[in-house]
């Protein structure tokens, strides 16, 4: 699934490179570099293992053919999502430089297609939930079945997503004549078969390792090299920034058309719906009627932005106020 430089335009390549570098930066931040010094040789050696294992042929029963693994899912299961993604980045760089397997401009695309979907989509959303809360993997049939099922499903879905991403990146670039539907119909079934083989091989390897050295799997690794999740303060800060951006900037693009209920009522009753006296009172006391200034002192865009900001602030104050009152009351009751 390694894309060549000739398949994409510089814009697509640069955008995907920027996205992949962003994910790399996030993964680097998430890893506790100081305490993971001892893991760097391990990451390097595991990366070399995955690289070398790509040259091993696995005979597919009853077909007479053989396949090989990509290794993205294996990296995520062994190293975890962040270390796995960074190791995949190193593997792909060496492949692009020394083996002409994937281009340098397409590096970002390849890293995203092969690293992001395995480490940040399939592993946390499919693999870990199927496995459940595991503190100790035992060698019983149920654990093996869950490991196997999780590995196969994760690999299949990750490869399907990666293959579809290849289609999108190629079609958006417009470098080949293949139409979107035909290209998709061509890529997805092939990568379903590839994903199945990859999943089965990954399952076999992971089940074996779980039986012999379960401590080598990331999911059972108690000494975590990852930092704990974001603090409440940084979460609130982030949400506040998003709220301001949405309230002040994105609100400028809000539709002025009537909403679904108003539209439906207007069409049923064939005239504009009015609220009578109550509407007049509301109109006279509203500070920012219809999300704008009452008199046309400033342009409408400023009025909308100010409405968004003030509205968000008032909502925050009201929710915090209610929360403080509820907390005070519950404290006085205990």
């Amino acid at each position, binding site marked *: 699934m390694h894309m*060549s*430089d*000739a*398949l994409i*335009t*510089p814009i697509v*390549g640069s955008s995907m490179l920027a996205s992949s570098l962003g994910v790399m930066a996030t993964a*680097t931040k998430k890893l506790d*570099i100081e305490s*993971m*010094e*001892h893991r*760097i*040789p*391990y*990451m*390097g*050696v*595991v*990366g*070399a*293992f995955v*690289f*070398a*294992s790509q*040259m*091993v*042929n*696995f*005979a*597919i*029963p009853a077909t007479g053919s*053989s396949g090989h693994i990509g290794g993205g899912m294996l990296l995520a299961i*062994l190293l975890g999502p962040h270390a796995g993604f*960074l190791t995949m*980045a*190193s593997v792909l760089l*060496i492949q*692009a*430089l*020394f*083996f*002409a397997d994937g*281009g*340098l*401009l397409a590096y970002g695309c390849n890293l995203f297609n092969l690293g992001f979907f395995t480490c940040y989509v399939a592993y946390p959303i499919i693999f870990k939930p199927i496995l459940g809360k595991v503190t100790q993997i035992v060698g019983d049939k149920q654990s093996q079945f869950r490991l196997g099922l999780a590995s196969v499903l994760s690999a299949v879905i990750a490869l399907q997503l990666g293959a579809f991403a290849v289609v999108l990146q190629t079609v958006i670039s*417009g*470098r*080949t*004549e293949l139409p979107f539907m035909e290209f998709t119909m061509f890529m997805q079934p092939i990568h379903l078969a590839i994903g199945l083989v990859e999943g*089965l*091989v990954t399952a*076999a*390897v992971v*089940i*074996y*390792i779980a039986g*012999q*050295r379960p401590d*080598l799997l990331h999911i059972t690794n108690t000494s975590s090299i990852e930092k704990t999740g974001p603090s409440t303060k940084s979460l609130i800060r982030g949400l506040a920034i998003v709220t301001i951006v949405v309230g002040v900037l994105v609100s400028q693009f809000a539709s002025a058309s009537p909403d679904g209920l108003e539209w439906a009522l207007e069409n049923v009753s064939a005239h504009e719906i009015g609220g009578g006296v109550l509407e007049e009172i509301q109109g006279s006391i509203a500070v920012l009627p219809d999300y704008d200034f009452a008199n046309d002192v400033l342009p409408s865009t400023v009025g909308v932005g100010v409405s968004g900001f003030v509205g968000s602030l008032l909502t925050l104050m009201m929710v915090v106020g209610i929360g403080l009152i509820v907390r005070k009351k519950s404290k006085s009751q205990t």
Partner: protein
Amino acid sequence: MSKRMENLIRISQLEELARRDNWLNNIHSLIKLIITIVYIFLISSIGKYELTKVLLFMVYPVFILTAADIPIKTFVGKMIIPICLGASLGMLNPFLDKTSVNLFGLTIISAGWLSFVVLWLKSTVCIAAAFILVSTSPIEQIVGALESLKFPKFMSIQILLMFRYITILISEFERALTAYSLRTQGRKALEWHVWGSFMGQIFIRTAEKSVRLYESMKLRGFNLQTAFTQKQKVKSIDVLYMFIWVGIFTGIHIWI
């Protein structure tokens, strides 16, 4: 010879070329990396039917292969498979795009064939540019160049370790697969009932090797903060070299 041994030989040949002492190898790796990136960037922005531009852009790999004395046999040997794979990228173009175009004002051919040839040449020269980079700069210098572009230090160390261990692990896989082949009357591919144990055993040995590797690195004074990758000094001739090539590429891109 197995694919693994071929890859081993490929790596050692490229390393040997990169460690020669000649004028091109002595140019700063960051400069060569920038030239390669600009080259690939501009090649990728060439339109579907712009054959003249692609042919002019080929001046870079042709000049470098000649001036840097890179053996053509080695170059062609490394490029055969990527070139063939590159041809598969646009092989449906002649069937999907049947409009007629004039080539060099004279010949009328199908646009699909033209776009196929352009795509193939673009793929080939992009691969050639990457090949030129790694055959004129050792991996340590390339990683050092990436570090000067704010690549994380621990990633540089990891890439170097991975690169060194690839050869060791390929050899280990080769020995294990040879033993398997001898025990299974010449089978080349692993049967399904040994997938897990074969790969798992090699992986567990690999993991234990990494522990010994880290311990030996610590005994030799390894520390993430003070570990260094090869750093070179940028000379004015290197900068001039870069401006010349970027100027040529930009000129071809804008005026042709």
